[in-house]
């Protein structure tokens, strides 16, 4: 099992690897030309506005959606191979469970349908939330139901855990409880986690890897720690009300002109003029800037990108 955080290029060390992945519905492309990889053992945040393609991407990874183009591998196994099924677990937005099943029935389902079922772990998660085993799922609160869904996901002993807005319908207390549970279980087992979320602060706390999607394309992929330092917030004086030409030497993510001043988020490619004020942005600011400007150039630090031939791009 690959639990290294600095992959050495062997297929199994990438938890998720996409090459030219695309999905077209009747309305058009939901996801297009996606090539990226996520190293094993990381907690990866999947960020993007509504309709950006996050759910489609997770649907592709969980075999719920078939790709139109390209391929996706989980630990080197193509997702269309049924052998991939025991390796991942999925927790969707709705967290569907059989409402008439008891908690015990639900856990038994996990045991019946998964070869590597860890009954003790699943039960521990349920018990630590004081969820009665003989209660019907339909009678549980939202937080308790999420806990059972988590137990089902972790009982499967996945190498990759895919979460689609897992906390969106929880109250702050339950959300905090679930985040703690998720982190504890993931760290203990070295599970790779890919979670989509709207809560940028939540991502900042939990994730050490980021995948930013907008308008069906990957905007950024890479270490959360490397993404932020790559950006600089600059403030300077406009020339005749327009942006100075020096700005064009750098990769510009977003600009705003305010009176005689301009503000810009850039990825510097060299020394900046001394009369510009610079500041380091927060992760939230970087993400927001990228989400607001879907046309900005993509960023792939540390070889998170794979081109169509599979060789690592610089």
């Amino acid at each position, binding site marked *: 099992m690959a639990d290294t955080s600095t992959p050495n290029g062997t297929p199994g060390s990438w938890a998720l690897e996409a090459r030219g992945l695309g999905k077209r519905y009747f309305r058009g492309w939901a996801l297009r030309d996606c090539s990226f990889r996520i190293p094993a053992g990381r907690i990866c945040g999947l960020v993007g506005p509504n309709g950006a393609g996050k759910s489609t991407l997770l*649907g592709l990874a969980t075999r719920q959606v078939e790709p139109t183009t390209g391929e996706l591998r989980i630990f080197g196994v193509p997702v269309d191979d049924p052998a991939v*099924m025991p390796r991942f677990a999925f927790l969707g937005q709705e967290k569907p469970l*059989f409402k008439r099943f008891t908690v*015990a029935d639900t856990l038994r389902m996990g045991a019946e349908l998964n070869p590597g079922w860890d009954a003790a772990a699943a039960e521990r998660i349920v018990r630590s939330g004081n969820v009665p085993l003989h209660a019907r799922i339909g009678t549980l609160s939202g937080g308790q139901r999420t806990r059972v869904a988590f137990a089902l996901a972790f009982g*499967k002993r996945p190498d990759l855990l895919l979460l689609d807005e897992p906390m969106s319908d929880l109250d702050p207390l339950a959300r905090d409880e679930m985040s703690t549970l998720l982190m504890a279980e993931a760290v203990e087992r070295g599970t790779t986690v890919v979670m989509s979320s709207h809560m940028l602060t939540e991502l900042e706390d939990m994730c050490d890897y980021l995948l930013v999607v907008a308008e069906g394309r990957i905007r950024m992929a890479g270490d959360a720690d490397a993404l932020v330092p790559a950006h600089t917030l600059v403030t300077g004086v406009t020339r005749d009300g327009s942006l100075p030409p020096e700005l064009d030497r750098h990769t510009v993510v977003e600009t705003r002109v305010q009176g005689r001043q301009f503000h810009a988020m850039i990825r510097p490619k060299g020394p900046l003029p001394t009369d510009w004020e610079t500041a380091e942005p927060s992760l939230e600011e970087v993400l927001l800037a990228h989400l607001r400007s879907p046309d900005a150039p993509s960023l792939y630090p540390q070889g998170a990108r794979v081109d169509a031939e599979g060789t690592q791009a610089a």
Partner: protein
Amino acid sequence: MSTSTLTETPAGLRPRRRLLRGLPWLVVRQHRTALACILGLTVLGALWIVYQRHELVQLLDAAGWPEKEVRHAVDDTRGYGYTTALLGGLPLLLALFIGAPLIAGDRENGTVQLVTTQSVTRRQWLIAKLGLAYTLALVSGLVLSAVFTWWWEPHRSFFLSQWIEGPVFDNTGPVLPAMLLFMTAAGITIGTLVRRVLPAMVVTFLFTVMAGFVWDEFRVLLGSTRMFTYPLDTELPARFAESYEVDRWVGNANGELFGWGTCAEATEKAQNACMKEHGIINSVIEYIDYDQMAAMQWTAAGILLAGTAILTAFVLWRVSRRPL
């Protein structure tokens, strides 16, 4: 069971019944209410028919049948009404409460996603689901058909319904199991296409009613009719007592046929004149003989089973091709 790794598991969680494992366990657990209802209905129906038969046999024994002629109509008894209502309603029940929600229910509640993100593929899950529904239809159909045939066949002269009519033809021999399978498959297919439980049930209900009408017209077409000609003023020979009369004509010596009402005139005089004019001397019946029943039933069952196979193949193809 007492290894150290399992000691943490409390007895309450340990599966006690190991009869069913994996997906079969899941589908039985999920549909256990519907399953129990249909199986309960089947058992009660079968016991009811056995009781009816027992009553009939006692009555006939007391009356000295078959040595003596007995006038008795099973159709007039309340028990027969209940039996035909159950057997006639069973295809609708299976289509509506087993077939239609089978796929549509999981689709609506999102539990397709739950099951197919465990370590089972969509196709495995679908096969388990279809297996449950078809086993139920088959078991129910075989049991009820067997007991009903056992009641009807030796005592058919006491049933007013003719063998070709729905209450007998559809509920005996291989037709009932095949009909239940087909209707279940139809419900499943509609549920797969409609993807919502309530609309699927409505469409299935309408389909079942329409299919019933079509089937009533279709049944006669399964047999090949024969003609029998006999003199106008004589009775139809007794050997045709069990034949189903499709149509009746009058004919002349040249074999020309005229409609039964051709010479239905107001007065006997006009009638005789008409008959003389056309040279009508014979009655002609077009009939299907009772000895064709078995062949017709197997043909019907074959058609229904072929329909079931086509619908099943369609559902499998659609579900594995398109995500639910």
